[in-house]
């Protein structure tokens, strides 16, 4: 039995699953609605940690660890660094344009309803022959054989993104000051 097998559907109680779902959704709500940007970042951390918990329920401990490392550990910290550029928190927040907010809420609710309709109307059928291979070794093997090109391209994308980020942040300083 692999480590991920502890979290399989048969043994998992329903309570913890819905608790994790509630944490995720609460984090997402905190990440979107408050005007204070610090609350938004903490909500994002909560939501991403909840998603990592959902990955545990989905049997893959490796992706859950990657989620914690990359999203919570790297991206959230980078966003925290950018908070200092935001509007000072002691100033009064500018008023929201209620028409725009209502339009945005309507559009996203429409999308949500359509999405749920598709999810619950479709009769999902599992592939007849499924392999039960969840191991990290298989993931690594496939990444270096069948998905090798994508793997290399994504390393190139990351390199270009880092160089581009340095250039964008650096050159603008030289131009303006």
């Amino acid at each position, binding site marked *: 039995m692999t480590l991920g097998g502890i979290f399989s559907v048969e043994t*998992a109680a*329903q309570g913890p*699953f819905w608790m994790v779902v509630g944490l995720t959704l609460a984090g*997402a*709500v905190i*990440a*979107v609605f408050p005007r204070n*940007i610090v609350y*938004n*970042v903490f909500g994002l951390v909560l*939501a991403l940690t909840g*998603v990592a918990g*959902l*990955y545990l*329920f*989905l*049997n*893959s401990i*490796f*992706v859950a660890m990657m*989620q914690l490392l*990359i*999203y919570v550990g*790297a*991206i959230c910290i980078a*966003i925290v660094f*950018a908070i200092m*550029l*935001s*509007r000072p928190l002691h100033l009064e927040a500018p008023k929201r344009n209620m028409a725009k907010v209502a339009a*945005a*809420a309507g*559009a*996203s609710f429409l*999308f*949500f309803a359509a999405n749920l309709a598709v*999810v*619950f109307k479709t009769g*999902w059928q*599992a*592939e007849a*022959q*499924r*392999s*039960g*291979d969840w191991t990290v070794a*298989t*993931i690594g093997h*496939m*990444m270096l054989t069948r998905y090798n090109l*994508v793997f290399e391209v*994504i390393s190139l*994308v990351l390199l270009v*993104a*880092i160089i581009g*980020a*340095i250039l*964008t*942040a650096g050159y603008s300083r030289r131009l*303006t000051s």
Partner: protein
Amino acid sequence: MNSLSSYLFVAAALFSLGLLGVLQRRNLIGMLISIELMLNGANINFMAFNRFLAPEPAVGQIVTLFVMGIAAAEAAIGLSIILALFRQLRSINIERAQELKG
């Protein structure tokens, strides 16, 4: 109800909240946070289909890892663009970034 549709429900809720944030926020960092939420909704979909339907359970995890790589690149580029915009405008409210507006 630990089934496929409950995961898809969570993913749809996360994606819609992210969409609402992108449409409604005017703070650029808030929009970046909402984009991360949307990417996570898509990731949950990949992992759920991978767990319940797909023939090979490794493929969805690989796709999720690739999406995480793209998200890291996007956050780096986005934050540096926000930095450059802040130096130009002294603000990161997108309503002020209107120089190209006709």
